[in-house]
C-alpha cells in the first residue's frame, strides 16, 4: 500500500484514477456501487467513448449536461448543468466525508462516488430541492433553530442524510440518527446541535408539519 502511494505520488497520479475502472477498496455502499458500475460491461460508462450529452433528473426537473465517462455526479452538478448546482459540496472526493451526499431514488449517496452517466434516469435530490419556495423543510428549519451549522460547508450533506433518514423513518431514535449521520464529517463540531436539530425535525414531521 505504502509503495503504491509513493509511486502514485512521485509519478503524479491521482487516486481518482480508480473510478475509471482500476478498482479499489470499497468502504461505503455508494462507493461499492460506483466501482461495480464502472466494471460492469453493461454500464453506460463502458459504452461511452467521449463527452456526451445526457439528461439528469434533478429536483423534479430534467437537466441536460455534457459529461465525460469519468465525470462524477458531483462534478456534473457543480460544473456541467446550467445554472450550476453548487449547494452540494466537494470535500474529499473519495467517499470519506459525506459533504457531497444527495438522495438518489430517496437513498442518501455520495455524489463523488457515482458517475454521472450511471445515474441517468434516476431521481436525484440535492439541497437546492429541499425548500418549497421560501418555505424551509422541517429539517432545514430545525437546523436553523438549533444552530446545527457553523461554516455551513458540511451542512448540505448532513441535511440530505437526515432527510433521507426521516423520510424513511420519522420516528428514528437518537442512536439511529447518529448511525445515519456517521458518514458525514463536520469539522466545526456542530454535531451536538445537529443531533438536536434532527430530533426536533423528526418531532415536527411526526406531528404532520411539512
Amino acid at each position, binding site marked *: 500500500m505504502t509503495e503504491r502511494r509513493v509511486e502514485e505520488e512521485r509519478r503524479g497520479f491521482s487516486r481518482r484514477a480508480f473510478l475509471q475502472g482500476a478498482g479499489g477498496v470499497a468502504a461505503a455502499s455508494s462507493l461499492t456501487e460506483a466501482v461495480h458500475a464502472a466494471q460492469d460491461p453493461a454500464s453506460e460508462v463502458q459504452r461511452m467513448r467521449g463527452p456526451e450529452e445526457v439528461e439528469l433528473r434533478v429536483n423534479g426537473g430534467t437537466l441536460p449536461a455534457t459529461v465525460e465517462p469519468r465525470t462524477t455526479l458531483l*462534478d456534473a452538478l457543480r*460544473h456541467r448543468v446550467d445554472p450550476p448546482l453548487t449547494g*452540494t459540496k*466537494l470535500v474529499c472526493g473519495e467517499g470519506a466525508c459525506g459533504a457531497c451526499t444527495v438522495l438518489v431514488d430517496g437513498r442518501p449517496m455520495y455524489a463523488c462516488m457515482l458517475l454521472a452517466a450511471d445515474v441517468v434516469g434516476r431521481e436525484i435530490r440535492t439541497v437546492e430541492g429541499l425548500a418549497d419556495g421560501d418555505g424551509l423543510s422541517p429539517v432545514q428549519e430545525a437546523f436553523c433553530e438549533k444552530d446545527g451549522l457553523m461554516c455551513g460547508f458540511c451542512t448540505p450533506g448532513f441535511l440530505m442524510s437526515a432527510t433521507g433518514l426521516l423520510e424513511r423513518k420519522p420516528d428514528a431514535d437518537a442512536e439511529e440518527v447518529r448511525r445515519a449521520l456517521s458518514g458525514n464529517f463536520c469539522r466545526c463540531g456542530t454535531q451536538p446541535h445537529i443531533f438536536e436539530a434532527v430530533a426536533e425535525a423528526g418531532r415536527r414531521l411526526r406531528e404532520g408539519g411539512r
Partner: protein
Amino acid sequence: MSSTPRTAAAAALQEGEAPRERIKVTKVVDGEVVEEWIEVAASDDAPRWQAREDLRLLDSDLRRVDGPAKVTGRARYTHDVRLPGMKYGRLVRCPYPAARCTVDVDSATALPGVRVVLTIDDGETRYLGQPVAAVAADTPELAEDAVRALAVRFEELPWAVTRDQALAEDAAPVGRDGNVADVRTDGDLDAAEAALATCDATVEATYEVPVQHHVCLETHGVVVDYRGGDEATIYASTQWTHVVHRERLPERLGLEGSQVESVVEYMGGGFGSKFPTGIEGRMACELSRELGAPVHMMLTRRDEFLLAGNRSGTHQTVRAGATADGKLRAMVSEVDKLGGIGRGSHPGLPYVYDVETSHLRIRSVLTNLDSNRAMRAPGHPQASFAMESTVDELAHQLGIDGLEFRKRNLASLVYHRQLDAVAEAVGWADHPNKVGPDTSDSEVKTGIGFGVSTWGTRGRPACVVTVRIGPDGAVTVLSGTQDLGTGTRTYVAAIVAEELALPLDAVEARIGHSSYGAANGSGGSTTVPCLAPAVKDAAHKARVAVLARVAEVLGADPARLALHRGQVIHLERPDERLGWAEACSALGADGLTTTGEWVASLTDAGVHGAQAARVQVDTLTGQVKLEKIACMQDCGLPLNRLAVRSQINGAIVEALSYGLFEERVVDPDLGVMLNACLGDYKIAGCADIPEIVAMIDDEDTRGPIGIGEPPIIPTHSAIANAIFNACGVRLRSMPLSCDKILDGLVANGTWAGGEA
C-alpha cells in the same frame, strides 16, 4: 532636555487636541500572540453595553441570520463561484521532501484544453509537496490531466522529515543556519534543580504531540475575476478579507489596490490556516493575468494536507516536583517545536499553573515538511497536554485527587468555581475512584479527568464600521470583516438592532467585501474584541443622530426621547409615539450614515475555562468511550448564547478528535506522508461524539471577549487524565489510541485478557 514631545499623544496635548490614552493591545502575527502599546482617543462620552437584564437580543439565543442561505445551498462559497470563460487552475507538487526540479512546460501545454503552464521558483524545493508549477485548463478534469501529463525531472536531495533525523549528527541541512532555531531559555536552572531536589514527589517524563491538520472542509483557494481590464474581483477562502491587498495580489494582476475588490461572503472553515492566500493566491493571479480570463484555483484535498499548514508537533521533556501538601514547587522542561520549515508554536511551560521555581529551554527543530500555521490557540493544546499530565501524575503520587490538587495550584478563584461546575456536571461527587484507578471488578473502567485553559488576546483599533439608515427606516450595517462560521454576521446585526430597539431581522448586516471598511483578520479570538466595540460605536452614534433629528422635527429635547420596541417615545408623554419608519422620514432623502471605531471600554481581555471528561475504558480491547465532557467558559458578555455554545461544542469536538485520533503520519524512510487524504487521516465522526455540556460562566460581567480559542485547549488533556483515572495507564504520547492503552494494560498486568 529636549522639548520635543516624545509621543504623538504628548504632541496632541501640547497643541490642545483631544487627550489620548495609552492602551495595551494584542495582535496575532504568524500564529503567535504579540502584545503592543498603542494610543487612542480618550473618550468620556463612550457608548456602554446595557445592563444584562435590559438586553433583548444580545445575551440570548439568536438564530444565525445566514442560516437560511446555508441550509438551502444558496450561500456561495469561493469554491462555488462560476464566471464566464473561467479556467481551472491546479498546482503541481514536488513528491520529495527536497529536490532539484526542472519543469518541461510543453509536455502539458500540448494537451487540448490546457491553456497555460507556469513554473514556480524553478530550482530547489525545501518541503514535501512544495508546488513547482501551476496549470490552467478549461475544466477541472482537463486541469487534472495537465497535472498528470506535466513532465518534471526531480533530482532528490538529502532531507530530514523527523525530529531524530533533523537532530542527527550528519543531518541534511533544512534551514540556512542548521536545523535548530530560536533557542530560548527562561528561569534559573540551578535554582530549579535545587528546588526539584527538595520535592516530596517528582515526575520525569517525555510528552509527545503529533502534527494535527486543520481539515477545513473548504480547501484553501481563490477565484480571480480578471478579464484584462482595469479592475478585478478576488474571491478568497480566507479568514481575512483584506489579506488580498496585504499580500499585494493586485500587483500580480498589474493593478492598483483600489482597482481590486476582495470578497469573502462565506467560507468553509479556517481554524487559523487561512490567513495567507499563499502560493495558490499568487499563482491564480499570475495565471489569470497571463490568460486575461477568470481563474478558479482551489487546492485539492491532498494539496491541503501537504502544503496548507498544520498545528505543529511538540516533543516536551519535563522534570517536575511537588511538596507533600500538594504545591507545585519545581519544573525543568525542554520543549522542541516541530513545525516543518516553520518555527512551530508553544507558549512555554509551566502553563497556567503556579510553579514556585522553573526553568524552560524551548527551540524549533526544522524538517523538510510544510510550515505549521496558526491553529485555534496556537501552541496551547500542546503545552496543556504536558502540563496537565504532569499535574495529574504528581497529584496521583501524593494521593490527592485531581480537582483538589488543581485548586491548590491555581490562584484565580474563577478557575475554582469553573472546576467545581464541571466536576458537578460529570458526577464527580459520586465518583468512587477519585485518587486512583477504578478497582471495581468490571472489565469496563470509569474515569474522570480535568483540564484548564487561558487566553489573553485583547481588542485594538482595526475595524471601521458603517451604519446606514434610509428614510424608509431600512438599516444596513457594513463591515469588511468575515464570518468563518462563528456567527459574526449575526452579532453585527444584533448589536445594531439592540441599540436601535429593532427586531433582529430589521437590520441587514453586509460583510465580507474589502470596500465595506477596514477590519482585522479573524484569528486569536480577536474578532469580537476588535469588531463588536466598533459596531456598537456606529450604532450608538446612529441612535443619537436619529433622536436628534426627530427631536428637531418634533421640537422636543432629544434627551427626553428614547427608542423602544421599534418606536420613538417621549419619556414624559408616553402616548406620543412615532413608528420607526415614520421617525426615519425625518432623516430626509439621504437618510443617515454613521461610522464607528474601536472603543476600549467596550471590551475586555483574559479568559479562563475548565473542562472535565468522563470516560469508560474497556480493559479487554483498550477502547475508550467518551461518556460526557463538560466545559465552563467565561467570555464576558455573550453576544449570542446559542453561537457561544456552538463555539464551545465545536472546540471540544475538534480537541477530542485531536486527542483520540489525529496524527500526520510521515514515513521516515521514504519521506512521504502516508495519510494525506480523508480516508486515512482519521477525524472524529458522529459516532465518537459524547454528551457535551457547554456552560457559559455568567458570573463574568465584563464586556464581550472572543472565545474561539480557549475551549479547544484542555479537552484532550482531560481525556488523557480520565483514561489514567479509569485504568491506570498513563499515555504520554498522542493520539490516545487503544493500541497504546493495551500496551499499557499489559505492562501494568491489568489487561482483562489475562497474561499477554
